[in-house]
């Protein structure tokens, strides 16, 4: 069992997301550490890509801030390397950055100088545990899956409300660490309501062993509670947290205060998740 999967063992996992380098490296490091302090069980850390087609406006803006601050792939790896957190880190990015990656110091044979293999090796080196790549469907995932297997890292796939049974089977079997259950159609972004489709998706996934983390649109402890009560093994929260960073940035709030607010929101979300687990009619894992 990987460290990521293990993070789901002791009760529902809280999986927060931030874009690395938003709004700049130092503050961002402080914010990521606040996630851990706030109770994160796994951290999804965005490696910014210039065309984030699966993101809503909130995360897109975070990515723009980070890129405008000068974030590069090398910076990202350095950033992760220097993080002081002891929960597993998942790198969330788009495929082209993985595909283009070239190792400065080639290792081993002539293969693997460019693309998924050196990217995964480098990621492992700096302490990354797994990957979510929203524009990489099962159909195109073989090279990255292979590289992850070789390095012993997880590759997490997203299951959408539109995913049919056949694809679902394939996706879950390709996934390791957890399955990312997309709560609703659309892109990332905080919303008020919990979609019925979340429950439907969780039901469809009930027969599979891998932990199911639900994301897309969660912003409050109450939502977290409902979703976990509905059967999720974890919740993924991105835009609601990025909103806190954006707020702080726009109002020139001291970094420490923004970090405090982030930590507080994390606590609320985590508590919601924990409460949700207690609400469950028949808890299937504890």
């Amino acid at each position, binding site marked *: 069992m990987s460290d990521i999967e293990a993070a789901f063992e002791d009760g529902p996992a809280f999986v927060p997301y931030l874009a690395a380098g938003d709004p700049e490296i130092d503050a961002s490091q402080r914010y990521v550490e606040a996630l851990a302090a706030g109770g994160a069980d796994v951290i999804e850390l965005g490696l910014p890509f210039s065309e984030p*087609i699966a993101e809503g406006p909130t995360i897109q803006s975070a990515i723009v801030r980070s890129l405008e601050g000068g974030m590069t792939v090398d910076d990202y790896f350095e950033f992760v390397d220097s993080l002081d957190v002891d929960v597993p880190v998942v790198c969330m990015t788009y495929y082209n950055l993985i595909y283009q990656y*070239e190792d400065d110091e080639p290792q081993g044979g002539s293969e693997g100088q460019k693309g998924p293999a050196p990217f995964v090796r480098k990621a492992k080196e700096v302490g990354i545990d797994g990957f979510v790549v929203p524009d990489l469907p099962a159909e195109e995932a*073989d090279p990255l899956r292979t590289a992850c297997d070789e390095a012993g890292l997880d590759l997490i796939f997203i299951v*959408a409300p*539109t*995913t049919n049974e056949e694809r679902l089977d394939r996706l879950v079997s390709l996934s390791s660490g957890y399955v990312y259950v997309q709560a609703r159609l659309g892109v990332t972004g905080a919303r008020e309501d919990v979609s019925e489709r979340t429950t439907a998706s969780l039901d469809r996934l009930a027969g599979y062993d891998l932990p199911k983390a639900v994301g897309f649109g969660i912003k409050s402890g109450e939502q977290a509670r409902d979703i976990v009560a509905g059967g999720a093994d974890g919740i993924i929260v991105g835009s609601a947290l990025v909103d806190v960073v954006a707020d702080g940035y726009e109002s020139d709030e001291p970094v420490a205060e923004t970090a405090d607010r982030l930590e507080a929101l994390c606590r609320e979300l985590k508590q919601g998740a924990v409460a949700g687990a207690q609400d469950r009619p028949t808890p299937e894992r504890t």
Partner: protein
Amino acid sequence: MSESKPDPDPETEADAKFGDYGGQYVPEALMPAIEELQDAYERYVLDNEDGFMDEFRRRLRDFGGRPTPLQRADTLSERYDRDVYLKREDLLHGGAHKLNNALGQCLLAKYMGKERIIAETGAGQHGPATAMAAAHLGMPCEIYMGRRDINRQRPNVFRMRINGAEVNPVTTGRGTLKEAISETMRDWATTVENTHYIIGSIVGPAPFPAMVRDFHSVISEETRKQAKEQYGRLPDSVVACAGGGSNTMGIFADFVDSGPQSGPESASGGEPRADVGLYAVEAGGSSLSVDEERGVAPNSASLSTGSEGVLHGARTKLLQDSDGQIMESHSVSSGLDYAGVGPELAHLVDEERVEAVNVDDDAALEAFHRLSQAEGIIPALETAHALGFLEETDRDLGEFVVINVSGRGDKDLEAALEETEQRDIPNAPEMEVFE
């Protein structure tokens, strides 16, 4: 790198990949829609189920105005001392080849039972063409367009609104095509169950590149027939501009496998080439070099200067920095101003079946004025690149050259004159007539 997979089953996945290019790099939420589209493409387009292709061709004729002429350009022929023919896609309804695809996809969406059309548009012609096609077929339609492009391209916005389409301003980023594409993808990711996204060129995830090519291949089908009727044989060279590459593959499609020419010799007696030469003319912009630091490429020459990567759903040639971040592209012609290119074109260039060349902003503007004055046809600035190649190249294009006049220049008048004024374009007219 060893990512090659066995070729997909040609029966069920028509042209999903072109060599290593292509594929389907899209969020999982869209994959079922893409599978559904793949299925519809095979049934309706490839197998003409329910007479889809017949209806498409009929509407292209009656509504679109096909066939478009293949016209000998007398003055250019004299200038270049060869027979230069123009394939007149500028005469298609809407003023550019774009309608072939917009109408095809809109009709396909209707056959698929979709209730709503969305599309992105830059400054070019895809938005208006989609709005026209949707109005023609009675489909509600929303077009995403960058705020900056909206303010720069009033006439195109007017046309879309007048045709009844909603125009959704995209305010993120620089407010141009890139952002509009992302925003349209977002809409689609939310509404995929009842909505079809009409991509505007031979880009995007499979089956888009093959499907868009098939809708445009009527250009090359007609050209082939007209060349034989009017000239007695196939052309020696076919030249088209390439942004995404839809007009390009549209006129190349039926010539890719042209093989050695048979049939009677031409009336004018020229020796036909063994194979039809295919030239994809990209926008050379102001320079072919890039500014890695600022992430800006002052050109849109992805085939000539780009490298392999993944963008907007497909593996293809891109303008990107060494990390893989997409560069800002540039061209005097907004319809060529895109950092990627169709995967099939990328493949054909690698295979050396298509030659990628480029023409810079100045030469394109000069060619714009040249055709206008010499032949009485004001070309789109995109097309002007194809025409500029004729002037610039030292390749031997042979006796019989066909240029794809992908669109008319009415949309470009203000831009062309403004750009002309800022440069030293020797054949530009004076505009002192205004007070």
